[in-house]
C-alpha cells in the first residue's frame, strides 16, 4: 500500500491525462458523430453513402490500427501533428465518431414514421415538427446507447499507453515495474480509478434518462 500512497500524486496526474483525453475526444466525436449521422440520414445520396462507408470502415478497424494510422502513418505522409495529446484525441475521435453516429442514427430511427406524418398533418412547419416532435423523442432514445459509447471511450483511452501517452494504464505499467511485490494492489487501485470514471458517466446517463422520462 505504501508504494501507491507515496506515488499518489503521480497516479492522480495520470488519471488527469486520462480524463483530459476522454473529455476532449468525447466533445470532438460527439460533434463529428452527429454531423456524420446527419449526413447518413439526410436526403443527399452522396453524403449518405460516404457516411455509411466511413462507419463501416472505421467500425471494423481495431482502435490500435487507427492509432497506428495517426501516430505512425501520418508522420510518413508529412502530415505530422506535434502534440501527443492532439494525436491521441484525433485517433480516439476518428474511432468513436463512427459509434456515436450509429447511436444517433438508431435514436432517430426509433421515432415512428407516424409521429412525423401526424405533425405534418396538423400543419406544423419543418422546424416545428423537428423541434417539438421528432428530435425530443430521438434525444430520449439516444441516451442509453450514447452512454455506452462514452463508457467504451473511457476504457479506450488506455490504448494511448501503447503510443507513449502517459495516462493511467501507462503509469500502472511503470508502477508495477518499479514495485513488483505490490502488483495486485497497484492494479486494483488503477482499476478502481477507471471504475469511478465509468460509474460517473453511467450515473449521469441514468439521471438524464430519469429527468427526461415522460409519462406514457
Amino acid at each position, binding site marked *: 500500500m505504501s508504494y501507491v500512497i507515496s506515488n499518489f500524486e503521480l497516479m492522480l496526474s495520470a488519471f488527469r491525462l486520462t480524463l483530459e483525453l476522454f473529455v476532449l475526444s468525447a466533445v470532438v466525436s460527439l460533434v463529428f458523430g452527429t454531423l456524420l449521422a446527419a449526413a447518413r440520414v439526410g436526403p443527399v445520396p*452522396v453524403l449518405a453513402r460516404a457516411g455509411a462507408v466511413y462507419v463501416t470502415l472505421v*467500425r*471494423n478497424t481495431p482502435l490500435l490500427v487507427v492509432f497506428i494510422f495517426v501516430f*505512425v502513418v501520418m508522420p510518413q505522409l*508529412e502530415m505530422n501533428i506535434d502534440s501527443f495529446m492532439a494525436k491521441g484525441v484525433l485517433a480516439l475521435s476518428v474511432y468513436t465518431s463512427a459509434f456515436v453516429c450509429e447511436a444517433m442514427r438508431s435514436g432517430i430511427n426509433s421515432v415512428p414514421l407516424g409521429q412525423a406524418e401526424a405533425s405534418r398533418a396538423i400543419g406544423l412547419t419543418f422546424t416545428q415538427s423537428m423541434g417539438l416532435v421528432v428530435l425530443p423523442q430521438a434525444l430520449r432514445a439516444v441516451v442509453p446507447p450514447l452512454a455506452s459509447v462514452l463508457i467504451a471511450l*473511457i476504457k479506450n483511452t488506455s490504448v494511448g499507453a501503447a503510443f507513449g501517452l502517459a495516462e493511467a494504464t501507462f503509469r500502472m*505499467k511503470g508502477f508495477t515495474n518499479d514495485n513488483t511485490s505490490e502488483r495486485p494492489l497497484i492494479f486494483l487501485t488503477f482499476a478502481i480509478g477507471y471504475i469511478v470514471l465509468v460509474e460517473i458517466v453511467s450515473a449521469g446517463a441514468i439521471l438524464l434518462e430519469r429527468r427526461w422520462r415522460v409519462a406514457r
Partner: protein
Amino acid sequence: MSSVLFDAAGPRARARYRTYSIISAVALLLLLAFLGWRMYDTGQFEYEKWEPFVTPEYIRALLVDGLLQTLLMAFSSIILAVVLGMVLGMGKLSEQAWLRWPCWLVVEFFRAVPLLLLIVFIYFTYGIGDGIGSYWSVVIGLTLYNGSVLAEVFRAGINAVPKGQSEAAYAIGMRKFQVMTSVLMPQGVKIMLPAIISQCVVALKDTSLGFYVAAPGLTRVGKGIYVEFANQVPTAIVLAAIYIVTNLVLSWIATKVQRRLTGERKVLVSSGA
C-alpha cells in the same frame, strides 16, 4: 421516399439535393485526391514499399503468423468466454444471494476495467519469464472481459424466453436444473447467438491490443514488416484491410445465422464499441 425527418422531395427540392450531391462529391474527391497526392509525394506508391505484399514468404507470414494467430486467439478466448459467461450468467440468475453477489461483482468489475489495463497486469505479473507468455495473457484478458459481457447477454437471453415456457416446464414436473438445460437454454441460445457472434468481432479487434505486450498476431507481424522495409503506410493499409474484410465476413455470418435461427424475431444486439 418519405422518412421521419423529411417529406418526399418535390422537383425543386430534388434539384437542390442534386446540387448538394455534386458539391459534396467534389469535396470528397478533393479530400481523396489530397491524400493520394500526399502518398505520391512521399513516395508511397513505389514498388519496393509494396514488395513484401506480393512476396509469397511475407504473404504467408501475414496470413499464418498474423491472421491465423489472431483468429486462434479470438476464437479460443470466445469459447472460454462463452463458458465463463454461462457460469457467471447462471450465477447472476441464481436465487442464492451468496452466489449472485460475487458473480455480479466479477461481471461489473471486468466490464468496467479497460482490457489493456487487464492485459498489462496479467502479462507483467504472470506472463513474463517462465510465466504463461504473452499469447495466453491476451487470451485470458479477453476471456475475462468477454466472459463478463456475455454473462449479461446470457442473463438477458434467458430472461427473454417467454415466461410460460418455464412455467409449463415446472408444471409437468421438471426440476430447476432440467428447466434451465432442456427448456430455457436451447431457446435462449437462439436469441443470444447473434450477440455472441458480434462479440467475436469485438474480440477479434481487441486481439490487436496484444501489440503492447508483443503478443503474436497481425499487429506484430505488421510491425515486423514495417520495421524491416520502412513501409509504414502500405503496411497499415494492408493490416486495416485484413481486419475489415475478416470482420465483415464475421458480421455477414452473424446475419445469416440470425435469419436462419430466429426468422427475424427479437434478438439481442450488442453495441460492440
